[in-house]
């Protein structure tokens, strides 16, 4: 008995090592990921300010947790050994050690609860670190419960131990829900089959299995009935139309009292801060076709935006409209689903601001020369004015 237990113990210790290894690997990954993330966000131009600091806290928590895990595992080993040798003298020490751990584990718990408040700043690394922490807490719980179990067993006789196992709610419940028969009765349910030495028992299918199977069949019937006979649940197109209508309503409500409700009838030149914002946007999505200075390049995809010649009109309204609706047949895509009206207006302002900058390597002029008109609400490029030509 003792020998067997010792063997199990050994195995458990090996497993413990693996747990440590796993936790360490995850922590390392989380740290490397934090840096990878930093680079990625730089490209993606999405800000995760504060995410890094938060990750450091998580990382420290994860590392700190390794300590109680270590201490508790020692306790666990000790309690197990004592359980085996039944030297009750040391039991007190174990209990003292154990008592020390509980509050510290508790403290970690409170840190854990405060995490939820900052959940919005989560990035990959945070999730990874959180897994490590949750994982460590599970290990803590398992080790703790086990140690308590062994310490309880210290004062029991063999007989009591067996009884204790039988009354253990989990094992007996497990046996019951699966309708397990005691191992000793196995001969009674042997089918007598032997295929290349493989015998077959004739255990009943677990009752929960049969019930659950019937339940899934009923589910199937109800599902089909609801969707296709009673038509009580929306099919995909109906669902889609509803979603779109709701989105439209929400959007209208939002735009009603919003100052940034800008469209082609209200777009005007914005201030320097917005021009800079527009420049930044331009550098990410417009750059590939128009170059970052807006002048495109020889053989470039898009036209030069810094000269006086325009394919689709050069007024602020025209430019705004070109961005908003695009010129699909020419390859200029519509940005209205990707940029907010304010962002499109910032872009427009930036483009208006670079007129005449004449950057090096710019593309040759395309389209017609545009001359500013005094009328503010020009909707399209005016016809070429002969008087403007020199």
């Amino acid at each position, binding site marked *: 008995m003792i020998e067997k237990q010792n063997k199990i113990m050994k195995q458990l210790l090996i497993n413990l090592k693996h747990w440590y290894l*796993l936790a360490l690997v995850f922590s390392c990954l989380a740290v490397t990921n934090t840096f990878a993330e930093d680079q*990625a966000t730089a490209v993606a131009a*999405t800000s995760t300010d504060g995410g890094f600091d938060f990750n450091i806290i998580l990382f420290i928590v994860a590392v700190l947790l390794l300590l109680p895990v270590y201490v508790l595992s020692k306790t666990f080993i000790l309690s197990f050994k004592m359980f085996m040798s039944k030297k009750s003298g040391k039991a007190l020490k174990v209990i003292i050690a154990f008592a020390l751990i509980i509050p510290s584990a508790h403290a970690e718990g409170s840190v854990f609860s405060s995490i939820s408040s900052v959940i919005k700043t989560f990035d990959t690394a945070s999730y990874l670190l959180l897994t490590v922490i949750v994982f460590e807490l599970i290990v803590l719980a398992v080790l703790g419960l086990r140690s308590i179990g062994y310490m309880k067993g210290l004062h029991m006789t063999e007989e009591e131990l067996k009884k204790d196992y039988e009354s253990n709610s989990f094992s007996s419940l497990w046996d019951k829900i699966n309708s397990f028969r005691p191992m000793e009765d196995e001969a009674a349910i042997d089918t007598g089959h032997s295929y290349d030495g493989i015998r077959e028992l004739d255990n009943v299918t677990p009752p929960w299995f049969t019930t659950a199977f019937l339940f899934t069949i009923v589910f199937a019937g109800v599902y089909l009935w609801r969707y296709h006979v009673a038509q009580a649940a929306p099919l995909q197109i109906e669902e889609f139309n509803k979603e779109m209508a709701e989105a439209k309503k929400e959007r209208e409500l939002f735009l009603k009292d919003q100052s940034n409700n800008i469209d082609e009838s209200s777009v005007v030149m914005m201030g320097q801060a917005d021009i800079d914002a527009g420049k930044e946007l331009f550098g990410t999505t417009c750059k590939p076709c128009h170059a970052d200075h807006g002048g495109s390049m020889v053989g470039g995809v898009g036209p030069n935006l810094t000269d006086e010649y325009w394919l689709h009109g050069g007024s602020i309204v025209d430019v705004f409209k070109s961005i908003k609706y695009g010129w699909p047949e020419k390859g200029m895509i519509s940005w209205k689903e990707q940029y907010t009206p304010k962002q499109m207006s910032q872009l427009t302002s930036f483009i208006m601001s670079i007129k005449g900058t004449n950057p090096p390597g710019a593309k040759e002029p395309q389209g017609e020369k545009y001359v500013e008109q005094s009328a503010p609400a020009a909707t399209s490029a005016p016809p070429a004015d002969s008087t403007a030509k020199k």
Partner: protein
Amino acid sequence: MQVEQFSYDNRAPKLFAIATVFWGVIGMLIGVIIAFQLAFPILNFSEYLPHLAFGRLRPVHTNAVIFAFVGNGIFTAVYYSLPRLLKTSMWSSKLSKIHFWGWQSIIVLAAVTLMFGFTTGKEYAELEWPIDILITLIWVVFGINMFGTILTRRERHLYVAIWFFIASWVTVAMLHIVNSFEIPVSLFKSYSWYAGVQDALVQWWYGHNAVAFFLTTPYLGLMYYFLPKAADRPVYSYRLSIVHFWSLIFLYIWAGPHHLLYTALPDWAQSLGTVFSIMLILPSWGGMLNGLFTLRGAWDKVREDPILKFFVVAVTCYGMSTFEGPMLSLKNVNAISHYSDWTVAHVHIGALGWNGFMTFGMLYWLFPRLFNTKLYSTKLASSHFWLGTLGIILYAIPMYWSAFRSYFMMTAFTPEGTLEYQFMDIVQTVVPFYIMRAVGGTIFLIGVCVMVYNLYKTVQAGKFVEEETAEAPALSKEYIAPKNSIWHAFIERKPILLLVLSLIVVGIGGLIELIPTFLVKENIPTISSVKPYTPLELQGRDIYVREGCYNCHSQMIRPFRYEVTRYGEYSKAGEFVYDHPFQWGSKRTGPDLARVGGKYSDSWHFNHLLDPTSMVPGSIMPSYPNLFENSLDISSTRSKIHAMRKMGVPYVENYESTANDDLQKQANKISEGLSKDNKIEIGADKEIIAVIAYLQRLGRDIKLQNKGQASN
């Protein structure tokens, strides 16, 4: 009764076992390579060789691990267990040899042709028609050998493992033949017989059941032999075996449409896919329970024996993924998981955990017995177990995370109603996850290498046992069943009846789903503005298929606000009627292309395909310089148009003879346009021109219709 002497031939299982290990390493190595390619596009090496780009290697990976690694694993199990379970020798050792070398040559042919771009463009069925025929022939050889053995058996009743082998054999035959209906246009090019929605339905009826009847049921057979053997415990429940065998094969076949939820597939077919997937949970779990409960009373052995450890984790992974699968078939969950890394994680839990670990356990059990020795090192096997487990965890978790993060980014709207993130933001966010996943895969592969070393040392220490002699009495002609035997025992005595019943049971679901989709017109409402592809576009489409673009790009916009806003109007069934094969895809590593036509200029596509990062900074797409060097092969236009018309695509009579004139006209126009607007000089005869033509056509037809309606 007279006792007869016979012997078990170990040569076939040995060959298959070695092939399993060999292809396992190759297949997983390619998997690791393509995993790194997604994070570091430079590894595509497409500047030097088009053969190694992700789009071509990914099918090599999937085909290698499914049909080479798992396939040979199945055959190892069958050739070892079948004679022993039936107390007879394999029917013909000559057929065993033909089967072995035939299958290996199929694998080699598959790998080479796929890398050269010969593909049908249908996932897991990419191989071109001559190889399809070869597969059919070899499969028949396997069947004859299997049934020859069964019919000359000395054991009256068939053990549950053999039920699974029989059902798998007949179903795979049915799936392969129906899905491979294609019309050849040349030695290595064919078009799927089906188009659009119908092609999608047939393909996923096949694809889903390739998982079911190639990766699952034969492996359940394998489990039923090797697990009780290794644990030395009786199988837990004979009754459960009967219940879960029949319910599993009956229900599995229906579940295919769950791969097409929220697509243009008719709603009724989608719903069938959902409910049958849900009903599949318990029949699948029946296998897991019978496996795990068989270990009752042997758990102390599990702690020490790495073989049993592998089996336990394998069966548990099976249980997890067969629960996850039905959950992914629920519409609201599928909305998140479809096209995402979640699906990738899901299949790898099954592939690495269930198939991988089951195979490893079998190999560790088998090699010492084939070579009459002990396993070289239990410790190394144990290390392999832990490396493998760690590998699976590190593979799966990053993929789940990446799926959820990209879903939340994909669906995020600003209050103004615009998309909050560009597609590229999302790609950049998931790249770190791709790296982690590749690391996980590498660790798993290292574990496999440890196994290779361990098995090699075992082989060296032992001596191969070519034949094992055995004896058993022959079956008597007359048999009177004992009074207490149950009805099912009757079927177990009649292998042909079992075969026929299996075919009927798996046939029902397929027929009920496929036939109405083909015959009932309302299922695919016609759209009058949808016209056949021009010859140049058709050629471009074939290049799109050749380069495996469908491995990363879908052509199916689902009816969700965030998809419609990002990609355009949702896809309609009627838009795909001339798509042989359909190209809906199953994973969006890149954006959907269903309506990319007209979105960008020709020069944008030109620059993008030459160097994707020039137009989309941070893109992880490989470059395709070969399209700019290769001249389009227009000699095939004639037979392609001809084949298309044969399948009902309405090209005018005799269009074959003038098709190339139209092709040249369209190509010249594109080439001239590039030269005039963008100073790009490229010959009209280059492949890139055809690809641009095809991309610019995508989704255009329905836009025309909308314009027409607006003007009316």
